[in-house]
């Protein structure tokens, strides 16, 4: 699926400057696309706008060349699985119930789960390595386990695209890598994957293309090698960095410099 923002402007009520100030970008079909940028640069706002969860002040978001607001909500949920940055559970819920919610857009108002639904749920649980937690209460899981359950819910939607806001936030190396490998596999299988992240080095290794945001505008867009230059990153993050090529992976690696270092 193809995601596109055209001159997207989003201004929150009462805000001094717009959160997004004229963003134009395209995520090609089947691409693993990383959205990067400093805190408050508009990454989450861009994700919500692309998914039609926020009304733009001007401009628009398009999915497969259709303005996102014109998509039927359930149709969109069958096509795109999205995971927001955080969720606070007010009530106990089992992992199975949580992942089962991914079938909502596939079910009629009164229909129960069928074989296809159960299979989609089982596959999603297995892919995210959370099958063993099926009967557990989600609130008793660790942050990493919970995150994988939420991604499993998105996979249970059997979508053609995934949009994830900081899915590896606060995860240890093993779980972070497992999720990124899963996203890479998904993209290789033909899904379009958009992932908002802070991890420049890992994004460089996994993403096909990346978008670097700065104060609601596009600072750079392109392949990791095109985007991750010393000058661009130092400017966007307001901090001197050195960019080298990682000998182990051959991808760019960013090292923030200490005061006085060159």
């Amino acid at each position: 699926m193809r995601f596109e923002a055209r001159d997207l402007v989003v201004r929150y009520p009462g805000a001094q400057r717009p959160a997004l100030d004229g963003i134009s970008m395209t995520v090609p079909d089947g691409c693993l696309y990383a959205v990067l940028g400093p805190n408050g640069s508009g990454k989450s706002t861009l994700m919500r706008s692309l998914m039609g969860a926020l009304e733009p002040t001007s401009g628009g978001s398009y999915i497969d060349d259709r303005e996102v607001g014109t998509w039927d909500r359930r149709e969109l949920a069958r096509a795109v699985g999205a995971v927001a940055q955080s969720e606070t559970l007010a009530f106990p819920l089992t992992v199975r119930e949580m992942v089962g919610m991914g079938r909502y857009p596939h079910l009629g108002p009164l229909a129960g789960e069928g074989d296809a639904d159960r299979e989609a749920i089982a596959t999603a649980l297995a892919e995210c390595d959370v099958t063993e937690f099926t009967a557990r209460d989600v609130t008793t899981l660790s942050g990493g386990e919970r995150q994988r359950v939420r991604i499993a819910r998105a996979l249970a939607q059997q979508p053609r695209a995934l949009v994830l806001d900081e899915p590896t936030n606060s995860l240890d190396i093993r779980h972070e890598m497992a999720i990124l490998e899963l996203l890479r596999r998904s993209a290789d299988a033909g899904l379009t994957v958009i992932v908002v992240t802070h991890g420049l080095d890992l994004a460089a290794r996994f993403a096909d293309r990346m978008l670097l945001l700065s104060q609601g505008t596009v600072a750079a867009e392109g392949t990791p090698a095109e985007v991750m230059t010393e000058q661009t990153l130092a400017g966007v993050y307001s901090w001197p960095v050195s960019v080298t090529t990682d000998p182990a992976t051959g991808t760019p690696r960013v090292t923030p410099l200490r005061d006085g270092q060159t």
Partner: protein
Amino acid sequence: MNRLTLATLLGVTLTISVLAGVRFGSVPLTTSQVFAALTAGDVEMHRDIVLQLRLPRILLGVLVGGGLALAGATFQALLRNPLAEPYILGISGGASVGAVTVLALGWAGLGSWSLPLAAFAGALLAIVLVFRVATATGQAMDVRVLLLAGVVVAAFFSACVAFILSVSSARTVQSVVLWIMGSLANASWQSVLLAAVYTVPAAVVLIALARPLNLMAIGEETAHYLGADVEGVKRTALVIAALITAAGVAVAGVIGFVGLVVPHAIRLLIGSDHRALLPLSFLGGAAFLTLADLIARLALAPTEIPIGVITAFVGVPIFLVLLRRSLAGT
């Protein structure tokens, strides 16, 4: 616990409390006298007691209790907060202002068809007020802000009721005061019908919204991504839950904590899937209020304890435990 087991258990409890409600009362009747009154009915006084007093009162308890519990569970899902409840949010208070206003103006009497509508207007006003205050700080609703908003709005509405009563005729005051404290004592077949007409269709609508409410309970942004019409569900569910609350207040006054205690207990037993939680809350609320009314009538017979006193005695400790827990979590 298995859902079917709980449904059976609640069904049995409700049946027993309904039967007990018909059997026992301040006028001592034997089982055979009650049975005779229900079937042939040779003694006219017994017939009146059973058919005109006890039976409508019990059915009203079933409808009001079920409705309040269902409204509570709905508010809790929408606000993602186990403390949300029509009484605590000030919605019952708003409904009582609406009802008292038309009563005092003499536009309607107790048991009239327009009373629930006036209560409904008051309940909607309360919802708008509480939500405006609670969401003023941003998107996220803070538990403490929400509760404070509810308390303050409720205080304002009880001041309104006090004001209206102070300028009303003595006759209005007398009839209103008893009712507003929360009581099923005014039950008649007319009020049962009235409660049923508003409560039953509203309950069906809310239970039909169970699946989107499941999504709403984990967050509006996520519900949106999973394909729910967030604004539509929120608007419909809030308005319908307000209508059920208003119908309850119109026929039985302000009865607190049913919407807090019952969904909480059911959630502990079967989890928070609203497809089971909502219908079982209705069943549980019906059983709870019928039992509470039985205690209200019998504990100090012939003196009757206001039913709101009983529900508060049960509800306040549970509320405090829940409050402690949710504040510890933030």
